[in-house]
């Protein structure tokens, strides 16, 4: 454990594939109460998750597991403590789902398959089915049961509900909220984070643009990108969205990466914004005061 109590922590981490960095200088703790990583496709959130799982080494900076750098840690203990939950397609299509769960258990504990399936709200009789014989929601529950098999302290969940119907999604979110395991949740949907994460980090073009209590970020965003994400979530009976054709503008190579999509962009945004503390969160935006007051 570090002094802050975080099980995992990124310290000025830059990540990339080949020589090309896609995540820049990110520092964050996976602290208690659930942590959300929010951003759209290509924002670097899955890359960061891969680094937290020890699947990608940083180009610079350090991922810490407890008080040690992850690459020097006891990986057996790490794999027991930190488990990934990907989308349900991660199940072997030929394998009965009970066996998929059993594989994650020590040989002596394989009788616990039924108990684990029950824990995630599945009938133990489903253990004999293959993935294609289950619904999308049931398959996702199997994936969660398999992750829970080793008794992890932290689940790293990458878009665990984005392929599911809203009713099924709601039940999976209920299940995740009921677990005592800590969680890092990666998603593009702020509404999902609201349920499960006390703290959230918003990523744009590989940089954390806003971090803070999820409730603050949602009720009063300080970064225009956080606000765009929040406003994009459809509200029941809300106004039709206004298309602007802005979402495909490539991130700016210099200055603030968001400026080509930003409704508040000003000449000052041609300089890169430094992260700063403001109104109970950390934000990297020259115009944050204007965002908060508008």
């Amino acid at each position, binding site marked *: 454990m570090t002094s802050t109590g975080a099980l995992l922590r990124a310290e000025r981490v830059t990540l990339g594939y080949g020589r090309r960095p896609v995540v820049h200088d990110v520092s964050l703790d996976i602290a208690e109460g659930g942590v959300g990583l929010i951003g759209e496709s290509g924002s670097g959130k899955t890359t960061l998750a891969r680094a937290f799982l020890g699947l990608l080494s940083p180009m610079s900076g350090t991922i810490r597991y407890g008080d040690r750098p992850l690459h020097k840690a006891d990986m057996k203990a790490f794999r027991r403590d930190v488990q990934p939950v990907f989308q349900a397609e991660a199940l072997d299509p030929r394998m009965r789902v009970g066996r998929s769960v059993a594989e994650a258990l020590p040989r002596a504990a394989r009788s616990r398959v039924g108990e684990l399936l029950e824990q995630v709200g599945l009938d133990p009789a489903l253990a004999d089915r293959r993935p294609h014989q289950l619904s999308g929601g049931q398959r996702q529950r199997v994936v969660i049961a398999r992750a829970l098999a080793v008794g992890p302290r932290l689940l790293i969940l990458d878009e665990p509900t984005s392929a599911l119907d*809203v*009713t099924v999604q*709601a039940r999976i979110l209920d299940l995740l909220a009921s677990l005592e395991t800590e969680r890092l949740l990666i998603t593009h949907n702020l509404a999902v984070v*609201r*349920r499960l994460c006390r703290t959230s980090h918003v990523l744009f073009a590989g940089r954390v643009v806003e971090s803070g209590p999820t409730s603050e970020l949602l009720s009063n965003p300080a970064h225009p990108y956080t606000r765009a*994400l929040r406003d*994009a979530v459809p509200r*029941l009976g809300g106004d039709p969205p206004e298309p*602007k054709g802005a*979402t495909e503008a490539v991130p700016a190579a210099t200055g603030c990466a968001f400026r080509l999509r930003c409704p508040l962009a000003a000449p000052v945004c041609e300089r890169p914004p430094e992260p700063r503390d403001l109104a109970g969160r950390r934000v990297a935006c020259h115009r944050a005061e204007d965002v908060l007051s508008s």
Partner: protein
Amino acid sequence: MIEVRGLQVRYGGRLVADVPELDVAAGECVAIVGESGSGKSTTLLSLLGLTEHAEVSGRVRVCGVDVLTASPRRLREIRGARAALVMQSPQAALAPATRLGVLMRRALRLHGRTDVDRVMARALEAVLLDPEILRRYPHEVSGGQAQRFAVALAIALGAEVILADEPTSALDVTVQAEVVGVLHRLRAERDLALLLVSHDLALVSTIADRVLVMKDGAVVESGPAAEVLARPSHPYTRELLEALP
């Protein structure tokens, strides 16, 4: 533009969609809402006669054509041209080794359109796409761009009806808003009849005039969107509303 009476779709004798009545007028947006397996996509596909191996009965009229009795040739006249289908994964539906410009040009010529360049430019402008996209291959565009390209193709071909099957559920929320916004605007500007299939009641509530809620193949509730959402009468509709995160 769409008129359905007593539509029943069966696979191997099993009833998978039972829609007593469904009308979509020009300039109107109707949404079919329900979870996977509710029969909503089957209903949509049957409107273009695309339910292979199914027994379909009832009356289905789209753009004045009686779909269930029309000749294959007559069906081809409306499919893709007057009534266009927008699928969940447009990239999967686009030929992977064909540039988007070649694909669009070919579709327009196939349907006998002239003045192809002008039509293409206008259609792309309508969906807020840069004409530069025509030089790209499907894998070189984002999901939201591919989806708007599918809508542009429909517009270029002069579609009067757009049938959209979960057009945004594979997209990021910001991109989803763009696609839904484009569909909504085009409906008003071009008097399009829009039939939208989705599992997301919040999303459809922003643009639909009327809503049909389907469960296990049956329509359990239907009516004006504002009324169904404010006073849901069926427990399943209430369940869908409560499920919104």
